[in-house]
């Protein structure tokens, strides 16, 4: 492992042992349904309230990743996990039932790649044998905390994103497997100057661009070397803005660019406005769709830039702006 350029890391031996993606009802009706490991037909996930439902998704993701990796919780040396709830409650409470050493991380909706980068650094530095990374989000917990509870019935503009209900987990190892985590770029906080919590895609686009630019410069990489470049949850509004901003720097995002928030739902036929968002958005697309496409040999090299809007409703009420952050990882198929 070594630092490359200004803000990137190249890993020597980090592989993905197993991964899991668990989703709610609407995601299961979306175009990526066949790539998910488990799902619930009801937002309550057989629980009493929304937090418990999200915890159920989170623990399901852990359990499925463990089973697929043929591991027990005792064999996991460390877990990096986080979610969107205040005090990353869902990760904290879910991990009561597991005796795995735990580091909580918060990167808003970029938590999936943030936890992967942390885990990969520690593992490549020689710590332990298996490190787990997990994250979750739930439509109802997020809408209530960051916007309005559904019962309030507020009108939503077209620019609003729809929080993905789901959870994803991955287990990293130094043993050679079919999917390798080769590179990463840690993002900087980029403030776009926007204040609209109902248009987070556009507030995160400059952060995504900064990380993309840094990644390409640090590694002297070309956009065409990737089979797929994914941003986390920019949605239709943010993805369009990113393309426009990138063009100013002579970066032409073409057909190999997509956004997880636009992939996870059928935007024309599902009531999701500008597309999906939330920690689970990038997580279920990466751990479900991307990993399975790699295992099937249909994708070889994928750049995933999970984007996070560092939104705090109190700061927005005090007329502060919404800063953004984006962390990138490169997953490659081992041939």
């Amino acid at each position, binding site marked *: 492992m070594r630092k490359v350029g200004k803000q990137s890391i190249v890993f020597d031996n980090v592989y993905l042992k197993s991964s899991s993606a668990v989703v709610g009802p609407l995601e299961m009706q979306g175009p990526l349904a066949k790539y998910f490991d488990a799902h619930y037909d009801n*937002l309550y996930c057989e629980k009493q309230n929304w937090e418990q439902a999200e915890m159920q998704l989170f623990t399901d993701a852990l359990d499925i990743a463990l089973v697929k990796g043929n591991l027990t919780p005792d064999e996991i040396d460390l877990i990096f996990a986080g979610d969107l709830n205040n005090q990353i409650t869902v990760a904290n409470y879910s991990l009561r039932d597991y005796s795995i050493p735990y580091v909580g991380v918060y990167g808003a909706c970029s938590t999936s790649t943030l936890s992967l980068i942390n885990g990969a650094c520690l593992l490549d530095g020689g710590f332990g044998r298996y490190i787990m990374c997990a994250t979750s989000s739930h*439509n*109802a917990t997020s*809408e209530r905390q960051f916007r*309005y*509870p*559904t*019962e*309030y019935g*507020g*009108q939503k*503009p077209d620019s609003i994103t729809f929080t993905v209900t789901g959870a994803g987990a991955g287990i990293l190892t130094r043993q050679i497997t079919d999917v390798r985590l080769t590179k990463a770029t840690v993002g900087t906080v980029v403030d776009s100057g926007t204040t*609209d*919590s*109902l*248009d987070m895609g556009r507030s995160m686009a400059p952060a995504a661009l900064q990380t993309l630019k840094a990644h390409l410069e640090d590694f002297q990489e070309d956009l065409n070397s990737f089979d797929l470049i994914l941003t986390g949850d920019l949605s239709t509004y943010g993805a369009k803005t990113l393309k426009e901003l990138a063009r100013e720097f002579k970066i032409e995002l073409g057909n190999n660019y997509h956004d997880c928030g636009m992939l996870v739902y059928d935007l024309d036929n599902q009531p999701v406005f500008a597309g999906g968002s939330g920690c689970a958005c990038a997580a279920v697309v990466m751990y479900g769709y991307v990993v399975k496409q790699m295992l099937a040999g249909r994708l070889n090299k994928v750049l995933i830039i999970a984007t996070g809007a560092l939104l705090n409703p109190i700061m927005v009420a005090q007329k502060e702006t919404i800063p953004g952050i984006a962390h990138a990882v490169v997953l490659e198929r081992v041939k």
Partner: protein
Amino acid sequence: MNWVDYLMAFLVGGLICLIAQILLDCFRLLPVHLVVLFVIVGSFLEILKIYDWLIKIGRAGALVPISSFGHSLTHAALLESEKIGYLGILTGVFDLTAGGIASAILFAFIIALVFKPKG
């Protein structure tokens, strides 16, 4: 009761909602901004007695939107202050809206007991 009442209720109520929708779409306000704005505007229009006139011609069309809440606050405060002096502005302000507030709490309680939120 005649059909003109229905037409006027539709037009007045529709006009208030149309203004709100235009503001919501053009100025990217949050729903809560709009609620506060319309309560304040309703309250000011009452000082100028415009809202009383709107209710007279528009009936339910003017009473149902949130702007009538602002109207009721000012209307009650002014009414009470005429009776007992300046202190009435404070003691009378919730006279007309008390029923609305109390029933909102009561119905919210009953609905919370019976139904479970879907999202």
